[in-house]
């Protein structure tokens, strides 16, 4: 138990800060994924055929290949690209890409392919008449998006987002191969130096479990909060 203390010879501090890194990494990845995902959803719902193909291709590729492979691509490939750009500007030698950004980008792009699907389903769940009514009263396109689409798509997408978030949270463990000290890496370091492998991996797993449970609870709260407005409205209709 003293191994987990927060003192000088305990690993508690490292693991706690690593848990924060994991959380931050997943959050940044989720935001990148939200941007990418809405783009993918828009492309898939677009009337243009090549855009639909592009969206379809993106989700097939990023949902079909192992996350680890994507991380390798960005980790090795990203550094290579930055080194190339650096050489153009006269820098020599190998420049390493910032691992946090690379990791967040890789997880974010994967998350985006799943989020795209969630947003698309949410958009399709919307009653057609709502948009038609808005067009009929002469709302401009962006106001339709802002007032009609966005609030409802968010509500419909929330349960799916909860799944995607958990997936990103777990995928973020893979980023440890690039050397960022997040929860997985911290458990590895602690386990390696104390030789108590089982103990520290168990602690790491427990931390992930706590993160999952807490975020699960938060999503449920958010769902019931957004659902409340919904319920009162449908109740008023009847």
């Amino acid at each position, binding site marked *: 138990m003293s191994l987990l203390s927060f003192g000088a010879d305990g690993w508690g501090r490292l693991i706690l800060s690593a848990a924060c890194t994991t959380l931050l990494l997943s959050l940044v990845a989720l935001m990148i994924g939200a941007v990418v995902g809405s783009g993918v959803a828009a492309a898939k719902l677009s009337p243009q055929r090549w855009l639909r193909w592009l969206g379809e291709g993106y989700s*097939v*590729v990023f*949902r*079909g*290949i*192992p*996350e*680890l*492979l994507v991380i*390798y*691509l960005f980790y*090795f*490939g990203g550094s*290579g690209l930055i080194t190339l750009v650096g050489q153009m500007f006269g820098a020599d030698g190998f420049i390493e890409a910032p691992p946090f950004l690379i990791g967040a980008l890789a997880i974010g792009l994967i998350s985006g392919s799943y989020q795209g699907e969630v947003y698309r389903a949410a958009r399709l769940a919307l009653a057609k008449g709502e948009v038609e009514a808005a067009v009929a009263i002469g709302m401009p396109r962006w106001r339709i998006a802002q007032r009609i689409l966005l609030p409802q798509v968010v509500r419909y997408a929330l349960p799916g987002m909860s799944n995607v978030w*958990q997936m990103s949270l*777990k*995928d*973020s*463990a*893979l980023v*440890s*191969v690039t050397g960022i000290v997040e929860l*997985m890496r911290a*458990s*590895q370091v602690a*386990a390696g130096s104390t*030789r*108590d*492998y*089982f*103990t520290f*991996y*168990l602690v*790491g*797993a*427990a931390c*992930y*479990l706590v993160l*999952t*449970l807490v975020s699960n609870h938060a999503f449920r709260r958010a769902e019931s909060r957004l659902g409340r407005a919904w319920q009162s409205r449908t109740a008023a209709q009847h």
Partner: protein
Amino acid sequence: MIDFAFLSYTFLKLSAALPVTLGLFISAFLCGGILAIGILSLRMSRWRVLSGFARGYILVFRGSPLMIQLFLIYYGLGQFGVIRHSFVWPFLREPFICAVLALSLCTAAYTAEILRGALLAVPAGQVEAGLACGMSRWLLLRRIIAPIMLRYALPAYSTEAILLVKSTALASLVTVWDVTGVAQQIIQRTYRTMEVFVCAAAIYLILNFIIVQLYALLERRLTPAHRVAKKPMPAVKPLAGE
């Protein structure tokens, strides 16, 4: 610009590792499926202790990353002398077996939830009709519940199979030389990330495509309505006066 010689060399090298990936997938798929049925029966049990255990199992294995589960098994179990000196150690020392074990345990948790969803979706009337015919519980399960459940579970199960294929890549982190492991090796030796990535991605995409097709085939076979519907339905004529 494109170095086809290197591409084909990489593709061949990676294809040589395909049996390892396939082996991981198939053994984890089978073991996970069997385990999932066990967990499902515990989960549906009337006894609080058993269903509570299954609930906890599903929560733990779905709530933590597979990578940490794999490391827990591969590196963690060796911490205990009891295990190191027992008869299971020759197996647990093998990275391949550890990877299969971790993958099966993890996928079993997901599969059990999928199967449970399907089981709850079996229409009550079907079960009642079976009982009314005087079917025994076992016969009912075999003839009525299991086929319907399998049909309902298929779409989600195919997704889970794809996720499992993707998860096998993690085995490379415990020195199993599967496609991803070999790809990483080549990348580190040559630093030609893009080419290697494209080859490995192609292999995984082809693999997943085949699995999706197999599931679609199975789904068609299990849906009699779709088979009959090959004949075009007679068009409904609008009634006169409408």
